[in-house]
């Protein structure tokens, strides 16, 4: 920006202010942000305000909610505190969501960037591999991976990441293909900047916005996939996760519905918050759609 421009145009507010202005225009996205903040708070405060280990026997089994203030949301079949489970579950769900998403994005970015940047046979080979992964129904692949590695939470998270990388890879590849011919890339190349630097320093930052938006989708799907695994009794019972809570609560769905319904609502609200967050980010990062 030259000095002359600055004098003509009114001073532009800082970027984050612009971002926030665009974001808050979407009221649903604001709701998402509030929900997300609540979930994060729950995850952080688990263990501080509510009583200890969510897996220990906290009271008589199947105490309904609002009866005993020791266990305000009731207890499950083994007398485990539902409230405590919801708090710790927030931590586990967020952890699964964030880590699985990181895994997926990292794999996706590397593969997509290589394919999009180099093109040619590299692109061909990597895209064939991507297609192969996309063809296998991802939940079937997830089941196979969990069958192989067992149901430890680390492995489940990794497996969810592994089955989720294809979409970001395709997105990154498309971005790279359109960006690699741009002037600033040519300029960098002429200056003798290495391929690695061009990929990660020059192109990637420009290709990121759609990936950031898509990350919210992967995060949402990761939590849903973990809960589906728990439903099929393939979750990790060493942690209180919402999926595990519903999976077991379903046995008492008719006599003590709150055991499944409370964590169910927690999942719905969390996944909803991710999705709304993604919407807002999309509006804020993609200013083409203004109204």
């Amino acid at each position, binding site marked *: 920006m030259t000095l002359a421009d600055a004098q003509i145009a009114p001073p532009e507010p800082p970027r984050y202010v612009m971002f926030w202005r665009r974001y808050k225009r979407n009221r649903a996205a604001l709701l998402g942000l509030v929900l997300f903040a609540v979930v994060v708070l729950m995850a952080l405060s688990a263990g501080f305000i509510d009583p200890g*280990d969510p*897996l*220990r*026997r906290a009271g008589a*089994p*199947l105490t309904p909610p609002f009866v005993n203030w020791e266990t305000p949301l009731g207890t499950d*079949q*083994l*007398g*485990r505190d539902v409230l405590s489970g919801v708090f710790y579950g927030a931590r586990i769900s967020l952890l699964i969501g964030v880590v699985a998403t990181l895994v997926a994005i990292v794999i996706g970015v590397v593969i997509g960037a290589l394919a999009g940047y180099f093109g040619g046979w590299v692109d061909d080979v990597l895209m064939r591999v991507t297609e192969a992964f996309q063809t296998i129904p991802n939940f079937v692949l997830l089941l196979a991976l969990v*069958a192989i590695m*067992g*149901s*430890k939470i680390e492995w489940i998270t990794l497996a969810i990441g592994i089955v989720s990388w294809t979409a970001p890879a395709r997105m990154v590849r498309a971005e790279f293909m359109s960006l690699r011919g741009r002037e600033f890339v040519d300029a960098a190349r002429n200056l003798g900047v290495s391929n690695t630097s061009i990929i990660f320093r020059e192109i990637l930052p420009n290709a990121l916005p759609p990936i950031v938006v898509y990350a919210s989708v992967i995060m949402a799907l990761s939590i849903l996939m973990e809960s589906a695994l728990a439903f099929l*009794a*393939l*979750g*990790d*019972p*060493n942690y209180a996760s919402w999926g595990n809570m519903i999976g*077991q609560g*379903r*046995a*008492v*769905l*008719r*006599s*003590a519905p709150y055991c499944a319904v409370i964590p169910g609502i927690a999942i719905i609200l969390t996944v909803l918050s991710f999705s709304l967050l993604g919407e807002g980010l999309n509006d804020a990062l993609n200013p083409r759609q203004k109204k």
Partner: protein
Amino acid sequence: MTSKMKQAGLALAMTGALSSVALTARAEEEVQKGGTAVIHMISEQRILNPGLRASTGVYNITGKIMEPLIDKSYDGYEPVLATEWSGSEDGKTITLKLREGVNWHDGEPFTCDDVAFSAIELWKKLLNYSSALQANLESVDCPDPHTAVFNYSKPMPIELFVAAMPDLGHPVPKHLYEGTDILKNEYNTAPVGTGPFKFVEYQRGQYVLAEKNEDYWREGFPYLDRIVWRFIKDKSAAAAALEAGEVQESGFIGVSMADVDRFSKDDQFDVGTMGYENNVAHSTVEFNHRNPIMADLKVRQAMYHGLDIDYAIQTIMHGFAKPGRGPVPSAGGINYTDDVPTYDYDPELAKKLLDEAGYPVKDDGYRFHLRHRPAPWGEYTQLWAEYYAQAMKEIGIDVEILTNDAPGFLNGVYRDHDFDTANGWHQFRSDPAVSTMVWLRSGQPEGTPWTNQFGWKSDEIDTMIDEAASELDVEKRAAMYHEIQAKAMEELPVFFAIEHPFISVTSKKLHNHHNTPRWNSSSWYDLWIEH
């Protein structure tokens, strides 16, 4: 049934008397003929040939289509395809009289040729469990079409033979099997038998349909026109199907324990344990004795004291169970004794014992860490695993649960021995010799599921088991099993922690149900439905 009776029945079940609320007097009711009964099956056995696969899941369906030589009733053994049986003095031959005038569903007559072929080609060679039983069978002679003579190289006690027949004595039609690859024979999934119902179709993953055999040898039977077995894997969906009236019977605890409890309070259903006298199970905790901590008897005793069995029975089994007393369950009749050492719930004592054993609480808050493999048999087995982990934490033992699917679990425990503790449930099959003793006897072939693969070995118990197995005097034999039971409760190679029967939920529309000790496997010729 009046509500009072039901409550009384329930109370009995709750106190652990395992009484059934299913059996009620309904003598004067008039039989209604015709109609279709729909039965829920939780697991799907894809082979429908009881001569090839010995499994209750197979009998539940094929028991109506193919009949055994001998069945079991509450009054003793009941002739079915065999009408009389006798053994020789030396115990090496057993002679059976076969029922005359019985036809296979395709119209061919049933004769001794079928029995001889089945015994030699299937029961001796191919049928699980039976191949060990019939190992010494040399030949089956047919002096006439309705007499079969079994020749053994070593004495075969007639009692054992007869006791085995209801499960392991289903003949197949020789004319459909001879000269074929028996394992791949098409009739393995489309059975042809002599039973009251004829096989119609098997839709994988959905249902098996059988219809009335008009030509059945019991005159005037069966009552039903059709039976449908529906495969519903999800227990909540099965409960919904029962409530919606789409299914009339669910056996072998086909719905969650919470729903069993709920149905037992519902006027439209009979909930009970009758008809499972042959099928009682133990919920267990198993140890890998290759781990020196697990090999320490004091540790195992402490762990037993750390388990609140009564609490687990009330919460997980909803009262439909009782504390286990070793390898023989109370349903084991004369062979059972409750005069054995027991381990009351006492976490303080548990902690003290662990301290004494040399496992004090360390800096991380635990005495030691265990890797636990739970059997993936669903609901109450999983809850039992989680309760176990919960309870162990209270006494300072950290239990990490390793969840696997069935092949992963069986492999991890029985072949790779990659575990510290495990849990599951294990069925007692009417006699300790043919069921629970494999848990204690050392020297089981490597990799065989549901046998002693725990690395536990006691020469004393091995000898006791072998002596009991060859003892012919019933009283002496029982005394020997009492002794083994007491020894097992003392040495604790395995916790036979909870004894639980199987439970059926049956619509009151069905009549004459659960009236034999292996009812779900029996032929149901007298079952009828209100319609």
